[in-house]
């Protein structure tokens, strides 16, 4: 087992037992892996560039001039998505924790609260996010209520918060349920109240455990920020459409995709790293005993 315990973050790319990004590559296998990669990707590349329509596709999707011209505007528009993301994620982490705690409350007295939490989670996990965005961002301003904002950005963010809180609540709940009941028993036996046991003993351990799946949901949310474009907010995807329409060329979509990848791939690697570290810690803990 020492191979796992001794692996470093660098092993992620070389493929230790902790991560299988590139499969398991032994020292002598690196050469073979390189050769295999060149052959496979070479073949795919060859297939694409020798396709009958390649010349047209190249002009429409890989135009260097359009790429350079649209890049700065799309980069600026991405900041809108970052704002949506940061704002929504902060609210989601709070609301989802509340929902998860509500759903985990024991005893018959709390039944209505559990029922509410379950109903909420079932509803918002079951409805397409884009529908909720439409209903809120177009429907609520349509009511023309006094003092109620008609800002599409605001209602779009609220819609994302409502939908993603349902997913994230389930992640939290899994974490809470993974903490052995003996931990709560130990806390209660010392005189801590149920709320104190939850706050000081159960939740800190639960949250630590679910950080990798939480980050995974961050990635999903990051992509979903583009949905807000449908209600008229000019964020990165809408800006890309405008650029593409103006240039009569699809290259801006490529730029947009690259921007999303630039955000989500580091997040994905972070998830892998944290998950691998957790595994190592657990193994180390087992061995210490």
């Amino acid at each position: 087992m020492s191979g796992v315990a001794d692996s470093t973050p660098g092993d992620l790319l070389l493929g230790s037992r902790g991560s299988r990004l590139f499969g398991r590559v032994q020292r002598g296998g690196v050469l073979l892996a390189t050769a295999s990669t060149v052959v496979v990707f070479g073949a795919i590349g060859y297939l694409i560039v020798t396709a009958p329509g390649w010349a047209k596709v190249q002009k429409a999707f890989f135009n260097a001039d359009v790429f350079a011209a649209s890049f700065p505007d799309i980069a600026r528009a991405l900041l809108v998505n970052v704002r949506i993301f940061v704002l929504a994620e902060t609210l989601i982490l709070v609301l989802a924790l509340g929902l998860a705690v509500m759903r985990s409350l024991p005893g018959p007295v709390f039944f209505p609260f559990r029922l509410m939490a379950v109903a909420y989670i079932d509803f918002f996990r079951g409805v397409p996010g884009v529908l909720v965005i439409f209903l809120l961002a177009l429907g609520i301003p349509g009511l023309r209520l006094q003092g109620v904002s008609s800002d599409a950005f605001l209602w779009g963010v609220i819609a994302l918060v409502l939908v993603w809180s349902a997913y994230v609540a389930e992640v939290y709940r899994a974490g809470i349920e993974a903490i052995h009941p003996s931990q709560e028993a130990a806390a209660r036996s010392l005189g801590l109240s149920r709320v104190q046991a939850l706050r000081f003993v159960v939740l800190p351990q639960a949250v630590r455990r679910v950080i990798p799946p939480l980050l995974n949901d961050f990635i999903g949310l990051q992509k979903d920020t583009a949905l807000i474009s449908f209600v008229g907010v000019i964020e990165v995807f809408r800006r890309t459409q405008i650029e593409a329409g103006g240039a009569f060329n699809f290259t801006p979509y490529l730029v947009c995709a690259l921007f999303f990848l630039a955000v989500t791939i580091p997040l994905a690697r972070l998830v892998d790293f944290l998950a691998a570290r957790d595994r190592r810690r657990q193994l180390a803990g087992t061995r210490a005993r």
Partner: protein
Amino acid sequence: MTLSTALPTPAGPGAAEALRVEGLHKSFDRLRVLRGIDLSVAEHEVVCLIGASGSGKSTLLRCINLLEPIDAGRVWIEGVEITAPGVDVDRVRRRIGIVFQAFNLFPHMSVLRNVTLAPRKVLGLPRENAEARASELLERFGLAEKRDEYPDRLSGGQQQRAAIVRALAMHPDLLLLDEITSALDPELVAEVLDVIRELAAEGMTMVIATHEMAFARDVADRVCFIDEGVILEQGPPAELLARPREPRTQRFLQRIVSAGRL
């Protein structure tokens, strides 16, 4: 004091009663674990519960501090009924320490924080006071150097001693020990049992579920043999362990002897 006089206090008349249990019943679904436990423990008395695995020793301890809801029966601590309706269970529990077989330390906190959590959050002690008191206790039980370590860096014996310190930090009137050496490697058992001997010598009232018969003989004022959810036989250790009256007690002790544990 609303005590009935049905049970004699074993330490003799006049000794204050630390714990009294009457007619305690507890079932898990259809499994009847406790079927009418009557037990009285005097202040400064050490009572060992012995019996086969599954006889109900652990369940009894968990019922005494109300970690398990009981089906029937009454429990008094220092003459106050804690099973009466309207009793604040959290207030009761802070007066009863319990140490578990699996330690149940909080893995995300240092040893020091494990020990100071309840004094700070339950008793409202300022941090400096709680830490000073905790450091004193940790020092006394040979854990001074481990105060800033996390539990998974400690040996089993050290973890269990830390758990004992955590319970003692609340100044309990009564300490319940639930097979606290069963999860330990044999060479680590002695260091934990020595701590308990020391506490017994100081007059700590304790109810101890244990499989260590030699330890029970050594430390207990009284041994209770639990069988099928009732206390079948009880008495001073020298008497009960050497000359058990009940055939089932005899059979149990024979098995222990042939397993080399007495």
